[in-house]
């Protein structure tokens, strides 16, 4: 049985009076791809950020390879370096070229030499087919290209898991394909991933498990085909119908 890489137990996140995540337990195993989907504002992004310890959970625990990250005194910077994160709105560093974006973490967190960092960064850019664009600034790249650099930035750190928070939803429809292709390749290589995505064809193809998330909790989970054929809950069924209609329209 494969080892669990990242896991949360009884996780809560509360902002003032709003409960964004309520009592969620979830684990991602080595080589596994889990897809999280659900209506906007359901707390998916918050859950993803809690798992990456970018936001402190209000209650509950997060474990990275069995090590509890929610205890006081844990070096969270080290932990975050082991968890890749790709943002919905990309968030490249504006003052650095594509290469500089990928090198920053390698140099300053993994403390690599300049040469070594550059070599590794170029390799990561090659994996996302952006090596010719290495010297361009983010503002000079298209949204799809920027997101590929965002993926390379996470990938280069050689993380144990990559969390992708709706990596294609801020892109124009004609640009999502190039990003999806890259993700497909990552999936083939057996990269451990938690993906928030509503690209249902892609989800069906790569996911080991899909999780329907609504109002801060897991409503229903199962293999992809389960959702495409016979979701148990009303809410999931209605959401799937709407998504499929929308996909057909596109």
């Amino acid at each position: 049985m494969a080892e669990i890489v990242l896991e949360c137990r009884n996780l809560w996140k509360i902002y003032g009076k709003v409960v964004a995540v309520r009592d969620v337990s979830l684990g991602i195993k080595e080589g596994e791809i889990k897809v999280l989907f659900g209506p906007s504002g359901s707390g998916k992004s918050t859950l993803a950020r809690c798992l990456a310890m970018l936001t402190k959970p209000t209650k509950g625990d997060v474990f990275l390879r069995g090590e509890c990250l929610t205890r006081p005194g844990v070096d969270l910077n080290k932990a975050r370096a082991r968890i890749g994160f790709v943002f919905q709105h990309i968030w490249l560093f504006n003052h650095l070229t594509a290469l500089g974006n990928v090198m920053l973490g390698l140099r300053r967190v993994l403390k690599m030499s300049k040469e070594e960092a550059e070599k590794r960064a170029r390799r990561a850019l090659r994996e996302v087919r952006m090596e010719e664009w290495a010297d361009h600034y983010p503002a000079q790249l298209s949204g799809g290209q920027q997101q590929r650099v965002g993926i390379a930035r996470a990938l280069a750190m050689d993380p144990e898991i990559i969390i992708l928070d709706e990596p294609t939803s801020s892109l124009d429809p004609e640009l999502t394909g190039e990003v999806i292709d890259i993700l497909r390749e990552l999936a083939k290589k057996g990269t451990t991933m938690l993906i928030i995505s509503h690209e249902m064809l892609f989800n069906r193809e790569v996911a080991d498990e899909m999780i329907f998330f609504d109002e801060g909790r897991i409503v229903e989970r199962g293999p992809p085909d389960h959702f495409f054929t016979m979701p148990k809950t009303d809410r999931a069924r209605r959401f799937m119908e709407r998504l499929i209609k929308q996909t057909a329209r596109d």
Partner: protein
Amino acid sequence: MSPLEKLTFILMGVPTTLAISILSFFLGLAIGLPLAFIRAYGSKPFQILVDAYEKVFRSVPEIVIMLFFYFGFGSHLREPFKNAFFTATFVLGLRSGANQSQIFRGAIRGIGEEQMVAARSLGLSRLQAIVYVMIPQTFIAATPGLGSEYALLVKDSSYAFIIGVLEMMKRADVVRKVTLDTVFPYFAAAFLYILLTFPLSTYLDMWGTRKKKQLGL
């Protein structure tokens, strides 16, 4: 005195004027940059302190503060305030710190929280994120504002005249008193001040604006 002699006499004040301006600019930088980050990321009591500091220097005249330090401390022959050059530079530096804090804070706000989150997601510490991600962008975004601040300091360095520093303004005034020429020295001084401020601040404004556009800041 021929016009050339008058001009030369005034020109000899340029090093002092520039020294006051440049030293107070860097003192202001050393104060303003940390204050801006404290204001943006510090705890509430510190934010209030920074606010108060900015408000005081925004609304109390530099001249009053110079007189306060120079005659308050200097009259008792207390180092270093009895040195008028020091006092002028010190006061303008404090004032510039308040201005630069505002300039940098505006720049930080424009860059936004997302750059910070993205940096932390790679495992950078808060301090590393500030040093490697926030500060470089802050400087680029702040360049036009810093250019105007430099020009402001060159102009305000003339207040040092009031506590007796022999800079350009004082020299122009000396020429008037000695030669009773009430026209040439002041127009010459005005021209020289514009020459010291206009080219550099225009260049910084253009460079900063272009760079900001290129980086989408």
